[in-house]
């Protein structure tokens, strides 16, 4: 039962914890599931709103250290909002 990635038929990021940055004030952190014309389906998603007073960088840094405080079990980030998708494990903060 050891081994590497095996999710045949799924996108490369399926199951990976990612940061989805948007063109607006919201940033999403959670597990990437899939993507289609509607948007990016994520699981166990934390949402950061820059209006909350905490910087995006601090939110992502805290998520990397302490884990993701999930706001939604499933969430679709609308495709038009998506600016960049990065693995949380690769974020250099």
């Amino acid at each position, binding site marked *: 039962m050891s*081994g590497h*990635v*095996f999710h045949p038929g799924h996108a490369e990021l399926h199951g990976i*914890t990612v940061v989805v940055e948007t063109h607006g004030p919201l940033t999403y952190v959670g597990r990437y599931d899939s993507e289609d014309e509607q948007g990016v389906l994520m699981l166990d998603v934390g949402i950061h709103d820059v209006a909350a007073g905490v910087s995006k960088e601090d939110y992502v840094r805290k998520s*990397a250290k*302490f*884990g993701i405080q*999930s706001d939604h079990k499933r969430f679709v980030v609308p495709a038009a909002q998506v600016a960049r998708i990065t*693995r949380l*494990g690769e974020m250099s903060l």
Partner: protein
Amino acid sequence: MPYNPALVAPMRTEVTQLGAKELTTATEVDAALGDQKGSMLVFVNSVCGCAAGNARPALALALKHSVVPRQVVTVFAGQDLDAVARARQYFGEYQPSSPSMALLRDGEVVHFVHRHQIEGRSPQTIAAELATAFDRFFGAAV
């Protein structure tokens, strides 16, 4: 809904054969983590192939290091629900994540390896980082 126990059994064995004590109830978790002394690693096992499939062999490699935790216990996320929920109560501000590993010293989490720190990494890389944490937090005969 938990997976078929027969499917999960080899994943449990892969960890318990390393000497980890499996905790399947909240009572067992309290007995192991309540008033915990010395060094301990809690391995939160998972059926996830892309992360747990690397985490288990990483644990095996790390436990060959010269400095290791005195106790190793394991709970299985998505399977032993009460045990996992109770174990997470001992993890303080660290959010639920599976697979994951918590290093405890005298009942306090001193280091936590989240799922996102396992995904896409080789067992050797994960084990090396664990060994560094063992040296740092358990090096002085804890």
